[in-house]
């Protein structure tokens, strides 16, 4: 049942989705609720807008296909975030395979995308920060982005990435140190 603002909870949307005649309606509401948050999460990982758009569409297509068997062991938000993260990482790995170059060159490619990105309006320090983030190893980069920009709790990040809170804290700590060193050196 919708609240006073006419909004359904995640659980209600999932229940609606399981009613065949209301699936499209419920899914549309889920997309509208989470599209922006997931977009920005993916965008910071992939940098390029068009690639992010493709990845986000794939994320929701997978969500559509998987929602029929979704049993709410995790929250809808956590589940969607996990799909989006996996899709983004899958995109980067495919890109690495396609280019036949080491991951560092993919990061370099992302940095070049950043330089030429028409949908980037940050100042030089922001651009420098983004370049610093691109130097991080994959796991540290994801943890840093989720903690720093999305301000997620470690417990939530642990649930999404299926890892321990202690490991995440260590990753974030290392990430911040590397970024600050990069900013000092540049």
């Amino acid at each position, binding site marked *: 049942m919708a609240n006073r603002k006419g909004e359904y909870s995640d659980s209600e949307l999932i229940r609606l989705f399981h009613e065949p005649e209301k699936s499209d309606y419920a899914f549309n509401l889920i*997309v509208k609720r989470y599209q922006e948050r997931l977009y920005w999460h993916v965008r910071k990982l992939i940098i390029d807008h068009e690639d992010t758009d493709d990845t986000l569409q794939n994320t929701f297509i997978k969500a559509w296909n998987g929602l029929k068997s979704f049993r709410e062991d995790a929250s809808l938000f956590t589940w969607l975030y996990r799909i989006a993260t996996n899709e983004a990482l899958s995109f980067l790995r495919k890109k690495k395979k396609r280019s036949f170059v080491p991951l560092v060159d993919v990061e370099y490619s992302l940095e070049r995308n950043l330089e030429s990105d028409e949908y*980037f309006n940050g100042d030089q320090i922001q651009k420098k920060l983004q370049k610093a983030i691109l130097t991080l190893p994959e796991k540290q980069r994801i943890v840093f982005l989720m903690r*720093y920009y999305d301000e997620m709790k470690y417990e939530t990040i642990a649930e999404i990435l299926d890892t321990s809170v202690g490991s995440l804290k260590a990753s974030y700590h290392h990430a911040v140190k590397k970024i*600050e060193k990069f900013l000092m050196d540049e």
Partner: protein
Amino acid sequence: MKLSEIKKQNPFTVPDGYFNDFSSRLQDKLGKQKDSKKRSLYYSLKPYIYSVASAAAILIAALVYYNISENKHSETVLLSSEIALAFEDNIYDLEETYLIENYTVQQEAEEMIYDYESDPTYKDEIIQYLLDEDVEIESIVNEL
């Protein structure tokens, strides 16, 4: 430089109206996927459909062949029995026909012999032949 000294902000932007259009573009893509799934379901079932159709065709052909074969066999049996019955029914007639034919041939042969002996021209020729062969006239008279 410390990270805390940098203003936390999202430096990325999106094209105008992107989030307003996203949902409808996604629905289009999902619609195509649903159509594609229906088609792929058909294509994935296609070999099975052909297999089942082939098996059905073979089964029907086998049944038709079996029925025809059965009918042929029945016809053969019927024909054989008909022939047997006909033979049994007509055996007397056949014998009769055979006898009649034989009788006719024999009669004709007898008639031909009779004709030769009664024919005066033929008798004269025989007499002449015997005379030419120096057979005594008395012997010829006795034989005639």
